[in-house]
């Protein structure tokens, strides 16, 4: 019933797709975290207009399906002179989408630092920049670990949607193997297994990292 020869025959195609998934996710996540930080700085402004722009961006990207965003980028991009390859569209899509979530994660992280610590730092003569660098940011980075890991897992799973806009990642590879061999069970079982392994590994790694970092925070 489970034909192992399909796997032994097609594993290079599958592994190439898997590598692409990992690379695209890594790029999308790194860029998304950076763009999210820029967004957070805009949203943290004292002025009303940047704050409204921030809220608009976050609401828009969190309130619509990733599939719709990807279709708009992929089919709409050329209308705006944006001719990107499928892979570039995929990375850009994950970046714009993930940033909305990461910006909100940073915001929650900063909010969870007790106000008394900032006052204490100021009373000790630290400048606002020093307070930020030595008191707020290190703690914020530790506090947001669980949310960042969660979001990373979500993005890895959602990257399967990129197969719909023909990005050559692992789901696309599985679909291709399935159509070439006329078999359904093997490619999809291996595909699900691969995602499950990646997600479990990221989750376990995140827990270890969290435990290591939490030693420095007393609550």
């Amino acid at each position, binding site marked *: 019933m489970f034909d192992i020869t399909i796997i032994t025959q097609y594993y290079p195609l599958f592994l190439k797709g898997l590598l692409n998934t990992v690379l695209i996710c890594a790029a999308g996540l790194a860029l998304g975290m950076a763009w999210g930080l820029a967004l957070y700085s805009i949203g943290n402004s004292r002025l009303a207009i940047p704050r409204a722009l921030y809220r608009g961006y976050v609401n828009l990207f969190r*309130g619509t*399906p990733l*599939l*719709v965003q990807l279709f*708009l980028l992929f089919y*709409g991009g050329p209308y705006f002179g944006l001719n990107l390859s499928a892979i570039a569209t995929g990375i850009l899509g994950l970046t714009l989408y993930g940033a909305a979530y990461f910006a909100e994660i940073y915001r929650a992280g900063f909010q969870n630092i007790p106000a008394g610590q900032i006052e204490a730092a100021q009373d000790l003569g630290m400048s606002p920049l020093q307070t930020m660098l030595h008191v707020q940011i290190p703690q914020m980075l530790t506090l947001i670990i669980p949310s960042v890991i969660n979001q990373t897992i979500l993005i890895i*799973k959602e990257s399967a949607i990129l197969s719909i806009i023909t990005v050559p990642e692992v789901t696309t590879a599985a679909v291709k193997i399935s159509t070439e061999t006329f078999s359904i069970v093997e490619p999809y079982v291996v595909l699900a297994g691969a995602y499950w392994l990646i997600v479990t590994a990221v989750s376990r790694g995140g827990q270890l990292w969290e435990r290591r970092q939490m030693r420095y925070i007393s609550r």
Partner: protein
Amino acid sequence: MFDFGVILAQYPQLLKGAWQTLSLSLISILIGFVFGHLLCFGKMSERPLLRRTCALYISFFRGTPLLVQLSIIFYFLPLADINIPSVLAAVLCLSMNTAAFQAEILRGGFQALPGGQVEAARDLGFTPLQIRLHIQVPQVFRATLPALLNETIDILKNSALISTIAVTDLMRMSQTIASSTYRPVESFAVAGAIYFIMTYAIGKFGLYLERRLRIS
């Protein structure tokens, strides 16, 4: 340059798609809520076999992409000689997926309840089922409401994927309109706007519900 009139002229199709998206998502959320409860009790059970089965189920559905789950259910069912319409396959898959997520949300809620309440209820002569229904579930529902509403919004958004198995939801309708009018930008922008209105409304309704439940 842009012509939204052509897209909006197709409003009966868009509304039909939006209704399909909304109704299928909400049905799946409700089924997932009931099934999620059972899974949650299963994972907290003292029987190792039941506990491990539920943990494995939850781990699988939380650890693999919804798109892969949809393909598996859609293509595997005919292999087992089960032929159901794609709408049914979509609801089945969305429910099975959200049940895993809701089970974990609910487990967090149950574990946060003070243990003394259960002991007190037992001393007052409540049966285990009565304790669950009258003491734990109402409190857990209230405590986990924000997370459950988030999950509802997630499922509504993720339901766009059921368009890939030929369910005529909002996404599918906008794809049809895009290819018949040759205006992909406008039709996907309109679809995005409709999704946004739906998720925004659920979010607002959730805030209202939270505020009401907090007062009473």
